[in-house]
């Protein structure tokens, strides 16, 4: 498995299904901050709380124009049932076939359980890793780290381009 990409590394590219007839390509999101939330399994208690929290916090993520993507090895129909059960309205990507390929590319696959690790990445507008955090499977990381990273990124952008609109 690849190592966890570090700050400043280009985030590995991927295209993954987000629904039975739709997919999302990371490269298409250039120009916007992207939050990748790898998580072990649909419907598990901690993952359910974590994804429900991100839905509740979505208006805050929107203020940064950030795209939030959940990623697990569950299939698209499972994702749909999970999203319906929790009223999730942001994309859940299915790293199902080849199983965990994207999670592996992000150093975020647990070969023992066959699930993704609970890893957060915040990518900058150029698709580079700005911040990441690996949490123990049983700990819900919350959203404070993501928002602090988005703040720091906005501040760095503003500093690098004085007078810019960032």
């Amino acid at each position, binding site marked *: 498995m690849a190592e966890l990409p*570090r*700050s*400043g590394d280009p985030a590995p590219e991927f295209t993954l299904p987000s629904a039975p007839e739709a997919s999302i390509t990371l490269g298409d999101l250039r120009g916007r901050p992207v939050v990748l939330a790898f998580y072990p399994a649909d419907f598990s208690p901690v993952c359910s*709380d*974590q994804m*429900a*929290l991100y*839905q*509740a*916090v979505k208006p*805050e993520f929107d203020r940064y124009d950030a795209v939030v993507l959940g990623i697990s090895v569950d299939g698209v129909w499972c994702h749909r049932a999970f999203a319906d059960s*929790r*009223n*999730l309205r942001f994309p859940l990507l299915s790293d199902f076939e080849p199983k965990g390929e994207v999670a592996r590319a992000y150093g975020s696959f647990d070969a023992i359980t066959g699930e993704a690790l609970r890893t957060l990445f915040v990518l*900058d507008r150029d698709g*580079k890793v*700005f*911040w990441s*955090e690996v949490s123990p499977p049983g*700990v*819900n*990381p*919350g*959203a*404070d*780290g993501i*928002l*602090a*990273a988005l703040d*720091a990124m906005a501040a*760095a952008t503003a500093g690098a381009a004085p007078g810019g609109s960032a």
Partner: protein
Amino acid sequence: MTTPFHIETGRLTVPVTAEDHVRGDAGAPVTLVEYGDYQCPYCGAAYPIVEELLRVRSGRVRLVFRNFPLTDVHPHAAAAAEFAESAPAGRFWDAHDWLFTHQDRLDPDSLAAAAAALDPSGSMAQAMDRRVHADRIRHDFLGGVRSGVNGTPTFFVDGRRHDDDYALATLTAAVDAAARTSG
């Protein structure tokens, strides 16, 4: 940007102020902040435990309750938060107690009846209808998000997120440990 930077997570970013609802001895050395949702069954389960904690550690710990309604999963959570915040002066904790002891009756009609009982003048019901405390509830919620609230209930013991269960023994031990630190 190649310098990795460290973000400290799970710390209370909104200090406790006179605006907060405080239960227990205001001068207690340890502060337990709970972010909760009145429709959340886990918060309901935690409620008697927290009450018991305040009793067995009376004078040592005070409770601050802040709103964290997860309205996508709990359709009555926002109205219930408005109910508590709209209680007449000095009656917040009565409203809080009612909510956590009647979690099966948070529908609009039941809340309206309970508000009428708590405040026959009708101003509580009016405040609820107008959602006059919506900003405060939102402020609570966002402060919680920024502090690393990750579900409900989330507790902070003297400003540090309590990443453990909320059994009475666990919470009591956390409070005692914090009391030793605060000397």
